[in-house]
């Protein structure tokens, strides 16, 4: 039973990440491999604030989300003003830089050994420690995220983003500020990723740089690609499916030294296969 609760909790957190990546990549069409970095920033901020008893859970989450919003805006704004391809370089750079900081800034992030002993989340005075409570918290957060996503996409903003994906030039010719729309999408993506990070930190009570590296960003991309771009269904299916993958793999006898490589290999194959044969993913719209 505990296993299923754990799976559901983690999946809920990754759905938030999936919504974030979907906003950025699926909807605004911005190629991003730095989502895991932002996820990590959110996690480390909440961990730091909770461990040093500076704030309780909800304010810490707000701070982390706000910071990640600002981070995403800072990353996308200058790069998008120049041209789409520059963003690829920026995104790779940010991700590698973030990994370097997470691994080497021992004072702030605990370095390669990470931060153990993160206190559990507390809500209105009650500490949430049991797996049952945690799954409710995370599924609740996931539900909130889904509602927000749905509202955004139904609104003119969603339509604007759809049009931008089709033909930026025509949208600009219709008098709309394309850059501001994309940066707004990136900002929202930051909020989702930052909150996911905070939840992750309190759920696992231990974080280290290996959860927030380039491989993790590739996993996030794979979730959106497999689940499907631009839809709520896709953002939910992708994470649930791909988090089940490692469990399925344990049924096959793979030596532990190459288990990680085997997983990443499968993600790579999935990316290629879906782009070639099913760009809309399982439940999404064509990328």
């Amino acid at each position, binding site marked *: 039973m505990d296993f299923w609760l754990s799976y559901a909790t983690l999946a809920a957190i990754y759905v938030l990440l999936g919504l974030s990546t979907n906003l950025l*990549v699926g909807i605004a*069409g911005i*190629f991003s*491999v730095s989502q895991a970095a932002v996820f990590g920033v959110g996690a480390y901020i909440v961990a730091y604030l909770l461990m040093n008893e500076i704030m309780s859970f909800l304010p810490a989450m707000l701070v982390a989300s706000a910071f990640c919003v600002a981070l995403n805006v800072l990353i996308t704004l*200058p*790069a998008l003003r*120049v*041209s*789409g*391809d*520059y963003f*690829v*370089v*920026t995104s*790779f*750079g*940010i991700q*590698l*830089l973030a990994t*370097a900081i997470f*691994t*080497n800034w021992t004072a702030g992030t605990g370095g390669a050994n990470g931060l153990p002993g993160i206190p559990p989340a507390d809500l209105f005075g009650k500490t949430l420690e049991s797996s049952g409570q945690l799954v409710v918290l995370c599924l609740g957060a996931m539900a909130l995220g889904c509602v927000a996503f749905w509202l955004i996409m139904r609104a003119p903003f969603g339509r604007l983003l759809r049009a931008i994906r089709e033909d930026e030039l025509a949208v600009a010719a219709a008098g709309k500020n394309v850059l501001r729309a994309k940066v707004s999408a990136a900002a929202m993506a930051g909020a989702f990723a930052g909150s996911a990070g905070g939840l992750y930190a309190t759920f696992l009570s231990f974080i280290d740089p290996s959860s927030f590296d*380039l491989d993790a960003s*590739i996993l996030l*991309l794979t979730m959106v*690609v497999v689940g499907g771009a631009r839809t709520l269904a896709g953002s939910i299916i992708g994470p649930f499916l791909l988090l089940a993958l490692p469990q399925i793999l344990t049924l096959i006898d793979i030596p532990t*030294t*190459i288990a*990680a*490589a*085997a997983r*990443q*290999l499968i*993600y*790579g*194959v*999935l*990316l*290629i296969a879906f*782009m*070639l044969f099913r*760009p809309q993913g399982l439940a999404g719209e064509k*990328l």
Partner: protein
Amino acid sequence: MLALQLLCNGLATGCALGVVAVTFSLVYSTTKLFHVAHAGVFTLGGYLAWSLTTRGVPFIVAFAVAVAICAAIGASIQAWLYARLERRHATHLVILIASLGTLAVMQNIIAAIYSPNILQFSLPWASEVVAGGGSIRLTVIQVLIVAASLAAYGGLMWFAHRTILGKQMRAVASNPFLAEITRLRPRRVHVHVMAIASAVVSIPGVLVPVDLGLQPYNGVTPLLTATIAMIAGGVGSITGAFVLAIAIAELQNLSLLLIPGEWSIGITFFIFLIFMLFRPTGLFAAAR
């Protein structure tokens, strides 16, 4: 003096990086695709050569075989993946994702077969000191890297400006639509360009690991630095990419005097930010 040694090391690294930058630029300016899987080809070359040399094959033969296989792989990626996606009018985002997937596949197949740990070549001649004036030491392999990289740069310049394929490539790069309707067969040119770029990038791909060792995930950071060199040098300028790569490598190395090595990616990224904010077209942008 330490600074001088760092400068020498930087020259070797910079030249190798320069070849990565130039070959990446070749592909980017012709196909307009951000071929991130280039890092995978770069990595593959080294492992292929290692496999052969550890089985007793003479280094020069192993080198040639690695180059040939990399050329074939690069051409295949273009012909069977990118071209297929382009025929279906896939967006650049889709092709980018496919390229990233290819990179992940290549790196992780290597990690699965060869283990994720660092492997070393056992070529004693490589680390023999060639020049040593006082406290400066240059090894054979470092000199070889510089020589081979300069030769590669010269070769690509000659190719781009003097051969028919090179001129076709530049024509396709400057006006793909015109190229299409004047029967220049851009798709075929793309395959050739990828083959050449992949072959040439495997030169540092083999030589650098002889000096520094092999690791499956070591291709991404050099590729990132190389793309920044390409942008800072001006997209379309082969010389610009090469020169800037050396400049960045030297700056990275000299920064070691002030900050620890793990942060050198910060230097590279900082340079990128400066260019993006103040001079996005680069220093030697091609006329347009």
